[in-house]
């Protein structure tokens, strides 16, 4: 039972811990280099909008239903709320898009009519219609995880693109491009 009679160990196996550590290190470096992205993107892009028919959220605009998106013309679907600060920040950009002839439809999340009216009075009202989604039924059904989010919907009612967060000034041409793309796709399908 002497210690010295031991077979020489498998040298290759000895490198295993170091190799595993090397792998971990590479993973950690990769994790650090990659900018933290806490957004959860919708995986529903490419699918037709689910069926919904939301009541009106504001006195001077109609409610919103799926049928509004099947007119052959691409539209923006903006998920927002009066209590959300970035939503106020993106208002000028939405106004610019509406000015450029884009139809912007709104879904107001957990909003009271009087708060929404005040929000629209302060920030402008670019919406053609605003649906009232008090239970986030539509928001969840299209895979949206927060406000504001903006979806490009083609003329057949199919979701073509999701923009997470507020629309910045330089996002406006990008969204116009996406709408144009959706127009050709929507016509083609």
């Amino acid at each position, binding site marked *: *039972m002497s210690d010295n009679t031991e077979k020489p160990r498998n040298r290759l196996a000895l490198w295993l811990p170091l190799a595993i550590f090397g792998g971990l290190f590479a993973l950690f470096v990769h994790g650090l280099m990659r900018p933290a992205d806490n957004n*959860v993107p*919708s*995986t529903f892009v490419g699918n037709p909008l689910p069926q919904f028919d939301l009541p009106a959220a504001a006195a001077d605009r109609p409610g919103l239903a799926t049928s509004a998106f099947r007119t052959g013309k691409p539209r923006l679907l903006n998920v927002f709320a009066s209590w959300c600060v970035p939503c106020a920040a993106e208002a000028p950009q939405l106004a610019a898009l509406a000015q450029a002839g884009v139809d912007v439809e709104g879904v107001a999340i957990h909003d009271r009519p009087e708060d929404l009216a005040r929000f629209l009075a302060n920030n402008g009202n670019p919406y053609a219609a605003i649906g009232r989604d008090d239970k986030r*039924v539509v*928001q969840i059904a299209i*895979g949206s*995880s*927060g406000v504001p989010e903006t979806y490009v919907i083609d003329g057949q009612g199919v979701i073509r693109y999701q923009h997470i967060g507020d629309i910045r000034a330089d996002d406006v041409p990008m969204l116009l491009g996406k709408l144009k793309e959706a127009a050709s796709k929507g016509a083609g399908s």
Partner: protein
Amino acid sequence: MRVAFLAAMMLVVAVPVAAQQEVPPAPFAYRQLPDPDQEAKAKALMVTLRCVMCQSQSIADSDAPIAGDMRSEVRTRIAAGEDPEHIRQWLIARYGDYVTYTPQIKPITWPLFAAPVIILALAALLLRGRFKRGERIDTGEQA
């Protein structure tokens, strides 16, 4: 090192409370289903669904408003007789695999399920090597 719930948690807890308290949550966010069997089913599903706003909590134990609305959605569907796994797949279609704490068996998660098997195999190899040598020495001693 569970040192602190810091900023992330504070945002989740504090902001919605301040901003939204006047708007009632969805009906089944903080209400259980009357049928205990259905409620148990809904609860079992909810603890395995991840809240999409609050990073690392299930919708069953989060105060975030969207978690409450997702609870309501799940309970409503369960009450309507929908199968829990069907609800899970419905959510995965919208939020991706991120939304489920139960990893789905797909090519990208195969290594995750292979891990216990590989570790067991490694363990068996390690243990066998030791004990076989050990036994040989023992019998040698006895002979």
